[in-house]
């Protein structure tokens, strides 16, 4: 997280710390599902056949502490079918579900996040929070969970920003961008898979609207997030019962 601050216990109780092809994040859904980014499990530009163990940790804001809490064995990994690992410039369908072997017992430090049910969560300027154990502005991975507040940016600004940088990256309808070019605040490597959450005042709850997916450098402008609203049906289908 760039330009953010340390989270306190209980701020982001859904935050998962994953270690697959490196450090990543995730979010607890229900009491036995982890939502994360497909590229943390199937990284681009890596030999598709490398099989890495998937470690998932929950329930703390400190990396050492959270790893002491023993990882949660994963029963099943479900990658979204539209995700293209081999296409480095396309993070379409960058979403995945990890089904845990056992349900977790919830508590003040371990709670699930809600899924979006409304387009209003994507209105330009809506401020959300992104949390993660990723690289900070000092270019160091964090020992503690950090978070930053970011506004949802106007799509056109992000598109023109990408064009100015002469980028070929796909910015599809299934993504949104957040951040502010005037501020060095952003998510960064190591935060992937974590969620962008907003406060749903109407229902007094926090809702995940995006998944940390990709960006151009960190803190230089906008970050790009998987638009969860477009995958809620898929998620529910895969989770079936919940």
């Amino acid at each position, binding site marked *: 997280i760039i330009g953010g601050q340390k989270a306190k216990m*209980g701020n*982001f109780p859904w935050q998962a710390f994953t270690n697959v092809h490196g450090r990543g994040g995730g979010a607890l859904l229900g009491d036995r599902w982890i939502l994360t980014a497909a590229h943390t499990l199937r990284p681009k530009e890596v030999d598709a056949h490398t099989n890495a163990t998937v470690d998932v940790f929950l329930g703390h804001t400190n990396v050492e502490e959270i790893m002491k809490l023993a990882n949660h064995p994963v029963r099943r990994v479900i990658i979204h079918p539209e995700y293209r690992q081999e296409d480095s410039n396309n993070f379409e369908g960058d979403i995945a579900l990890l089904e845990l072997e056992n349900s977790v017992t*919830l508590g003040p430090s371990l709670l699930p996040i809600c899924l979006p049910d409304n387009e209003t969560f994507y209105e330009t300027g809506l401020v959300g929070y992104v949390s993660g154990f990723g690289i900070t502005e000092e270019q160091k991975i964090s020992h503690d969970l950090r978070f930053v507040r970011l506004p949802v940016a106007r799509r056109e600004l992000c598109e023109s920003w990408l064009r100015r940088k002469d980028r070929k990256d796909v910015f599809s309808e299934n993504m949104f961008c957040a951040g502010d070019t005037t501020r060095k605040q952003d998510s960064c490597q190591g935060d992937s898979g974590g969620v962008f959450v907003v406060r749903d005042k109407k229902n007094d709850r926090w809702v995940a609207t995006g998944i940390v997916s990709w960006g151009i450098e960190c803190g230089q402008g906008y970050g790009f997030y998987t638009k969860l609203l477009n995958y809620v049906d898929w998620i529910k289908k895969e989770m079936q019962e919940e």
Partner: protein
Amino acid sequence: SIPTRQKLFGEVTSPLYPKPYPNNFETTTVITVPVGYRVKLVFWQFDLEPSEGCFYDYVKISADKKTLGRFCGQLGSPLGNPPGKKEFMSQGNKMLLTFHTDFSNEENGTIVFYKGFLAYYQAVDLDECASQHNSPEESPQRLCQHLCHNYLGSYFCSCRPGYELQKDRRSCQAECSSELFTEPSGYISSLEYPRPYPPDLRCNYSIRVERGLTIQLKFLEPFEIDDHQQVHCPYDQLQIYASGRNIREFCGRQRPSHIDTGSNAVDLLFFTDESGDSRGWKLHYTTEVIKCPQPKTLDMFTIIQDLQPQYEFRDYFIATCKQGYQLIEGNEALLSFTAVCQDDGTWHRAMPRCRIKDCGQPRSLPNGAFSYTTTVGVNTYQARIQYYCREPYYKMQTRGGRSEAERGLYTCTAQGIWKNELEGEKLPRCLPVCGKPVNPVEQKQR
């Protein structure tokens, strides 16, 4: 003489019948039927020369050394002595029929031809017993000492109950050593009652009825058994045993009162000495279906279905429990209970108890818990618990707008199961509550 084969019936005719019979002829037909039968004879046709006193032609019937008649003439004619339709009956099993004709059958110088006769006889059973109906039992002429039974062709003797036919097949000797009575009711009396009983008796009257019945004895008047002022029954004794156990010994003139033997097997032993003229005893025995004690519940939760005022052998009762209680026999839970009244008047099973249904420790609720709304720790019928989820992290799943309190309320039912009114046995579900950090990020500075 012509003996007939011992047939049971036949015909006798005059020679050449129905052609005219010959003159100067005499024959005697001996009609014999089997012993034990008598001969009955009747003329169907009769046409002989009539004469005063049937001097010329005649038929003579005789039996048992007596002449039964001498006949001539024609049926329906006043001349001579025709036999008409008279039936002739012998005493014994023989009858003689003599047919005699003189040298001619002339009337006023004219020969008259007579057809003769056709007689039909049959064997008729001899009722040997008839003779003894009015002769006193002890008279020697009596065919049978006690009972005479006539049957076709003969008879046989039998004896009154308590006597046995002797080898002579006519006299009876008291034999009452194994009189068996199996009917549900009946009469038993000393021999010859109400006349004095014979001496030197060793009688055993056994009453055996089916199990489950008890024999009741009721003595009738007169009741007389030789006794002694000082010594108890030294001469004759009537002993009563029930199921092999001696319950009483009687003598004297005091009729015993009603006796409920409580058994389905009673023996009456009656011993007499060589003298005495007491008139003996007679009883009417009846049976009652054995009764079982009125069933009584052991607690206030047991119900006896359709309680009867009285229970007899083979009756049964069904015990159930009030709702929420469980039939218990010993330590075993029963689904139902039936007790049958046995043939010895006892119930085949002891009364059960009813223990309150215990639903057992309520199941733990994943991510939730429960509290008792009735006495803590008591899990019996009508106990109530309230499940709740570990809020704020979990929330109870409800349907149809029901409250969590309604959904979480479980009662220990009469079936011994914790049940929710709406969802039955199914436990509620505590679903994770999403998006509610207990310590959400806060921003003060603006």
